[in-house]
């Protein structure tokens, strides 16, 4: 194989090293400024100068979680988009795919993440969880079990939890607006 490296001028290396906006930063700027969100999703930046940490509020207008407001924290690391953003559900909610620590079971946040995906795809994926909670990959096993076994009871539990009630000795945060 031809030795190309030796043709590289040393000045190139120096030129590349000049402090530049990081690739992750640029990509996040691109992702955020091209977000195309429905009115049920809203981003909030605690510090508008920090694009790498923000919150997303989802207010489903249909489905079992209608009437609630669910906030997620987004944390974007320096390897983005090679690595997915870190996303957590802030309130403690009763949902088969969200655990009590706020971890979210969404394939594109882990195993199916690809650099070609973006923040918009993640947000749309999160909203989908509230429209179609999925009993097959549970993070809250109790909730998943209930969803599978008795849909009416599950729906009752969801409504109860959203008002800040207890389910099986577990207290859930109030997420309803009123």
């Amino acid at each position, binding site marked *: *194989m*031809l*030795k*190309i*490296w030796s*043709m*590289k001028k040393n*000045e*190139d*290396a120096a*030129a*590349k*090293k000049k*402090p*530049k*906006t990081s*690739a992750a*930063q*640029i990509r996040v*700027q*691109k992702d*955020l*400024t*091209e*977000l195309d*969100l429905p009115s049920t999703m*809203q*981003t*909030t*930046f605690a510090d*508008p*100068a920090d*694009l790498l940490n923000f919150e997303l509020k989802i207010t489903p207008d249909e489905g079992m979680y209608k009437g609630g407001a669910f906030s997620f924290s987004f944390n974007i690391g320096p390897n983005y988009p*090679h690595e997915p953003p870190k996303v957590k559900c802030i309130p403690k909610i009763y949902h088969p795919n969200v655990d009590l620590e706020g971890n979210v079971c969404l394939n594109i946040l882990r195993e199916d993440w*690809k*650099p*070609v995906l973006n923040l918009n795809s993640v947000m749309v994926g999160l909203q989908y969880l509230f429209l179609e909670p999925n009993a097959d990959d549970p993070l809250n096993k109790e909730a998943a079990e209930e969803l599978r076994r008795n849909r009416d009871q599950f729906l009752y539990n969801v409504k109860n939890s959203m008002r800040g009630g207890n389910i099986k000795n577990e207290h859930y945060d109030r997420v309803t607006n009123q």
Partner: protein
Amino acid sequence: MNGNSTSSDWDGRYFHVDQILDKPGPRTDPSFLAGDGVKDFLRNQCKILVIGAGGLGCEILANLALSGFKDIHVIDMDTIDISNLNRQFLFRQKDVGKPKATVAAEFIMNRVPGVQVTPYYGKIQDKDEDYYMQFNLVVCGLDSVEARRWINATLVNMVDPENPESLKPLIDGGTEGFKGQARVILPTVSSCYECSLDMLNKPTAFPICTIANTPRLPEHCIEWASVLEWPRVFGDKKLDTDDPEHIGWLFNHALKRAKEFKIEGVTWSLTQGVVKNIIPAIASTNAIIAASCCNEAFKIATSSAAYLNNYFMLIGTDGVYSYTFEHEQRKDCPVCGGESLDISIKKDWTVERLIEMLVEKQDIQIKKPSLSTPTKQIYLQAPPQLEQATRPNLEKKVSELVEDGGDITVTAASLPFNLSLRIKYI
């Protein structure tokens, strides 16, 4: 079975190629390892990626396999259409509807013993740097500017000053009717695809007044149907150029208009060609361009002869004319340029004025740019909170936010990558 299947290397298999590889010539690179060294590299170690398994890709795959590359990967996102069969010779009638990459790989492996071709049916954008890092060379036979820009930028960005292995030569072939070009891109070392973007022929667009009032060509009638009639009748409904019903509607309306103006030549396939901007593909042009791409791949992989530096142009429209020249790297190339694009503005220009200038600038073509410096946002188009937070900056002077010689990073949906501006005040 991969590569080192010496059992399939029958006597004399490489008789011709070996005459080149067995002894150095007067112009071979000093690093050339004549004999077993170079043969072992070519046949047992070298891993090459072919992007595109269409008109050029079929030729490239066959040429590489027959010149001794044994570990070939191929990516293509398309399936085989009946109209491909006239020139994409790895495909048969029975393959229509199947992925090009898979069928091409199987054909080559059946035809050329000992060659491993690994297909990927999907987009190049599905793969990340780790994937591209495994190859020694990349050969592109694409008809999409967007895909070429993407792979070019990916390979340029992959170059790590600390790691010589991260520099992957890119050999790019392209054809348009009787014209074509083959080029060798050494990312960050020589001119990249983005550097020469302005050399591309722009897709033909007719003035709107001509298509509305004075059509003379069948293309004018088709453009009238797609640009003016479709939105008038269907409002915001998007035209899907892959939908035969949509094409049929355009064809019928274009035909009616052509009759009205006594213009001949509106056909279904021309309609499809105009709205999808299809360029005629000629088998023999593909063969010439693919052959030169593969010769360059062979020369670079083996160092057995001087390689193309760096742009070969073929013009067969009027006799046969070819021209080879060194395309210069653009210092302000947004992808490989070590420096940013220099912009000189007056000291009292506001951010708003700068944005207007960017939008108007012909050679960058940005819509809705968002601007930032390495430490702060200047103006972001979205989301609403950030737009509001940065809106007051529109009134401010750029010079209040960016020092002389400072950098601004620009992103926009219409830009596949960011653009770095270096601001000078005059």
